[in-house]
């Protein structure tokens, strides 16, 4: 019976998933890296050796050394401190944007998926239009409208992630809606809101969690890309993409400026992907191979 399995999974919830995942070494490594990064990002102001905007012209383009672990940039700023502080911006943009996008996307997807008919048709046609625009182009146009900056980048990226989420939840809903327990809920005169929120959503949520995890990774890369072309977070804020963008012009004389911000993005995205894979295996054993 679908309801039983769904219910049991939810009851076990977090601990069951964690138990399942703890057997997966790669996923645990991802979780470990990510937790370490988040803790470092939160503690960044207390542990960075130099202020991230402190300019020391004597150390312009200094190579990595004991006093400057990752070296210094074109204005003599300590790159290690900047990368560490930048984690606050890059990671928070990814998480907040996906969170907002998921909530709005899931609401739209749930409405389309549950009500079907004309409502569904209207929503889906609108999403068709949005999805006909390649993702990065859409981001560029939205950031052009909103203007650059930290908050605007978050808004742009969350708008960008809505359509994918909505589509996915709708597909899940359509599948789940046909189950008998939904008919049962309807027959005892359960309200639509209640059916959606307490019956359908919990049973559709696993793939959404996985795709949100992967989405954070993708969003971090996209945010860095936007900043890289000058439409996202602006310097002197040490967002990783913005740092790479500034480092680009010095690639000949000081390649180490390019290494570390990019490496930070890559490690974060890698950790999120490992975690996402692990979550998928833990949440849905059917998909595992």
């Amino acid at each position, binding site marked *: 019976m679908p309801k039983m399995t769904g219910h049991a999974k939810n009851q076990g919830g977090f601990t069951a998933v964690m138990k399942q995942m703890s057997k997966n070494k790669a996923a645990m490594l991802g979780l470990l890296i990510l937790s370490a990064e988040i803790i470092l990002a939160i503690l960044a102001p207390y542990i960075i050796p130099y202020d991230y905007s402190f300019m020391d012209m004597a150390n312009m383009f200094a190579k990595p050394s004991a006093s400057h672990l990752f070296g210094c940039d074109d204005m003599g700023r300590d790159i290690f401190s900047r990368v560490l502080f930048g984690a606050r911006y890059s990671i928070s943009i990814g998480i907040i944007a996906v969170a907002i996008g998921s909530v709005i996307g899931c609401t739209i997807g749930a409405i389309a998926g549950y009500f079907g008919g004309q409502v569904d048709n209207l929503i889906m046609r609108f999403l068709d*239009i949005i999805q006909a*625009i*390649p993702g*990065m182009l859409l981001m560029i146009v939205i950031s052009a409208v909103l*203007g650059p900056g930290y908050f605007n980048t978050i808004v742009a990226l969350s708008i960008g992630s809505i359509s994918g989420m909505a589509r996915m939840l709708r597909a899940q809903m359509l599948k789940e809606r046909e189950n008998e327990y939904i008919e049962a809920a309807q027959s005892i005169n359960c309200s639509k809101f209640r059916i959606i929120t307490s019956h359908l959503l919990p049973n559709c949520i696993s793939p959404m969690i996985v795709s949100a995890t992967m989405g954070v990774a993708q969003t971090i890369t996209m945010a860095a890309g936007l900043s890289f072309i000058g439409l996202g977070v602006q310097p002197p804020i040490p967002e990783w993409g913005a740092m*790479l963008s500034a*480092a*680009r012009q010095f690639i000949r004389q000081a390649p180490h400026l390019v290494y570390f911000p*990019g490496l930070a993005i890559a490690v974060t995205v890698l950790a999120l992907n*490992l975690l996402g894979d692990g979550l998928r295996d833990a949440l849905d054993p059917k998909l595992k191979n």
Partner: protein
Amino acid sequence: MLKYVLKRLIWMIPIVLGVAILVFIMMTFCPGKPEEIILGPSATETELAAKRLELGLDDPIVLRLGRYMSDVFIHFDLGKSWLTNVDITSSIKERLPRTLMLTVTTLFISVGIGIPLGVIAAIKQNKWQDSLCMVLALIGVAIPNFWLALLLVLQFSVKLNWLPALGIGTGLAGIKFYILPAISGSTGGLASCARQTRSAMLDVIRADYITTARSKGVPERDVILKHALKNSLIPIITVMGTMFGHFLGGAMIIETIFAIPGMGTYIIGAVNSRDYPIVQGGSIFLAITFSFCMLIVDLLYAMVDPRIKAQYASGRKKRKVKANA
């Protein structure tokens, strides 16, 4: 089949209209006054007003939208750049092939390396080859393409001086200008292609008909390529479709890094200079390109899977069956 293609082509019309309206409306909300950017800071109040009148910026938005839509979809005229007065359609004609060249090369690299990697990983499941391929795939997903682009430029252009770091060339010599951009754009797609191939192959490889093929003495090579791979192509093609969109978008950043005068540099430049007609026209063209590719993907489904082809072909038959039932 033809009917299906026609239906899809007709369906593209409202989509493209929708994209045009959406982008037009978004651009009108852009901060910054275009006439000030065009004329520069020294322009007088009267000059600015004259420019506004010339560009029709004082008209209500509905009127401007109507005018734009009729220009584009009735007269097929995307207008001229506000800044340089160059015809946009001809600029796009010149630039779109470069972006397509980059995107298609990227796609070929991803598929050409991704599928073999996935097949090897699936055949050697849980052996070291599998782990190696999957670790490579993970790294491919994780590396941001603009960072890889910088690293490749550093290695192959700055240090080794093998390949050009910027611009485009003509004729056969032009190919080498696309090598680094295409490689740096392809890693993400390559990785997802490898992973998708692996999981699709693993689904298929234990199927009964594979055992049958083996037992009747089909060479292992043919079992893998003709029986297993062919049947796992559907999910791979699906990934390719989404990948194309990513590449088309990703090409915009890659073009900026390698200074390729394609659609990406065109649109990003126009966004920065508030040259709205270019952003609108460029978006319409990219949306059309993207929609065409999705159509091709759907047609590819039919090509690799006779069952889907039968579905497309037998619209009438199916209805008959339904009626009989």
